[in-house]
């Protein structure tokens, strides 16, 4: 099951954009005014909300919300 709705609601707490503009293709660094620290804060929130542990080294190459969705789902499967 896609986690995109959860990702979107968390990102919306940090970025002032219309919800419909956030898709799997959205690159937060490029399309939203979010810096890498904002992104880390979002990931921290998701860690705590979803009860998963993220490896910072594995997060570095995730570009879009779709990449993040796939990564978190793979973590949850493990």
């Amino acid at each position, binding site marked *: 099951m896609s986690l995109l709705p959860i990702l979107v609601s968390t990102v919306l707490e940090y970025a002032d954009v219309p919800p419909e503009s956030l898709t799997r293709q959205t690159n937060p660094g*490029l399309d939203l005014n979010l810096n890498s620290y904002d992104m880390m804060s979002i990931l921290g929130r998701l860690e705590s909300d979803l009860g998963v542990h993220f490896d910072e080294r594995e997060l570095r190459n995730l570009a879009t919300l779709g990449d993040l969705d796939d990564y978190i789902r793979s973590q949850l499967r493990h």
Partner: protein
Amino acid sequence: MSPKYYEAERLRDLRELVERGDREFGDKVVFRDLDSSGTIHDHSFRELRQDVAALGTALLDRGLSGRHIALIGESSYGYVICYLAAVTSGAIVVPIDQELTKDEMVALLNKSDSDALLFSDSLDRTVPDLLEGCPRIGLVAKMTMYRRNQDDSLNLTDLLESGRALLRQGDNRYEKAETDPEAMCAILFTSGTTGANKGVMLSQRNLTTVVFGAFSLYRFPSVSMSVLPIHHSYEFNLHVLGCIYGGLTLCFNDSLMHVGKNLLEFRPGMSLMVPMIVESLQKSIWREATRGHLDKHLRYGLWYSNLIRKIGIDARRYFFKPILKNFGGNLKMIVSGAAPLNPVVAKEMSDMGITVYNGYGITECAPLISANCPRLNVPGSVGIPIPGIEIRIVEPDSEGNGEIQVRGDNVMLGYYNDSVATEQTFTADGWFKTGDLGHIGRREALFVTGRKKNLIILPNGKNVQPEELEELMCNNLDYLKEVVVHQGFNKAGGEIIVASGYLEPDYVERVGKQSAHTQFQTDVARLNQRVVAYKHIQKVVVCDEEFQKTSTRKIKRHTYPGVSQ
């Protein structure tokens, strides 16, 4: 000493720093860190001295005096004792950014002639590959402190135990080991991984000078929180060494993902930050206020608080208590450095009760050059120089801006194995050329206004040499005729790295402009994987014409957006 400065004590070297810490502060906690399960571990000044002596003895026993010891890992007490034991026993430390790619780490390990590698658990899977590329490295150990190894590899606990055993048997090699405070004790790499990066050689005199300088400018709250990477000179030399000097407790944040949570846990009075984090904290305050429909109240509160401060009533910590509670409730002071800070953000944070002091430094100056401080805070400036160093402005233009040059005990010894670069960066009369432009303005404060060199400074304080990325692209993309890497903006106005390329006209004609653009974009995304994440090019632009050139055929970089002259 000028009344601008507080009284502070100059120390000879790091051994004196550690011994003085034990003598003056003994059982007080100096470092607090978290293990992987989230359990907090406290370490006292006395324990620090004992552990540094034990580890120093173990390193001497393994013949590492005078050798180069690379450190790769996240912030922890283990990292601190590795650094201090190495330096105080006569070795040279090489702190390396743990965010780098494997190839980048191999390049720096070899360039620094590293003989040993101490690394944290998170690098476990990377290290075998690193060692394949670094035949010189002999001793390899993990900085693991809070759990037993799963395998038989050497770790910090083993080294500490062997050092303690030797000390119990009367081994006094560490006690007798003498180090020269003027000699190289650390090699720190500037940005870049090819020809662009340089190994900055620092001495213990450099380190003790900036610690003395920081404590001449400030009196700090008793608990601080570390959020920046520990390999960086700003974090280690000022924050870690400064806390030992000043008798402070430094709490290590375990991940940028957990800053908010750890502020609540550790309740620090201060922190050292980069503008990106300060700006995010400020944004988070307004975001929370808006969400709770309290933004109008906050605006009014700020207006009223500023009004009554003019008549000497400072009620900021009372008015803004609910906001300050989100940062642990005690946060009063942030020192921001490594990149330019928006003065509006600094003022607003200060108006809410968290005073932000902007400072200026460069790795080659260990890194502190100047900073604003309680006794002299000039908005928009980077403050006054630390005591005992000199600053001059060379060849000022009509507005008084010229190159900032520095002379003093904070200035590096030179670049490791690079006499040409060393010679180029010092003037004939011995001043260090920062490459930054500025002037001395109001109340003798220094103002930094631009850069002479082609360096992109990101809001997170990371520096990017555009030439390194340009070389990577030119060497790998046959159809790329010319490229300029520069700072640009994303759709929402945030700063990003952009590559503007002029492609071979035959190639564009053959495949069409749209396909050429797509190919360029795809190839740049692929090449991004070869460099550390903060250097990733996030946008490519295909230019229709060749770049403008000077008479010597150099591209006029400053004609492109965000490119400094």
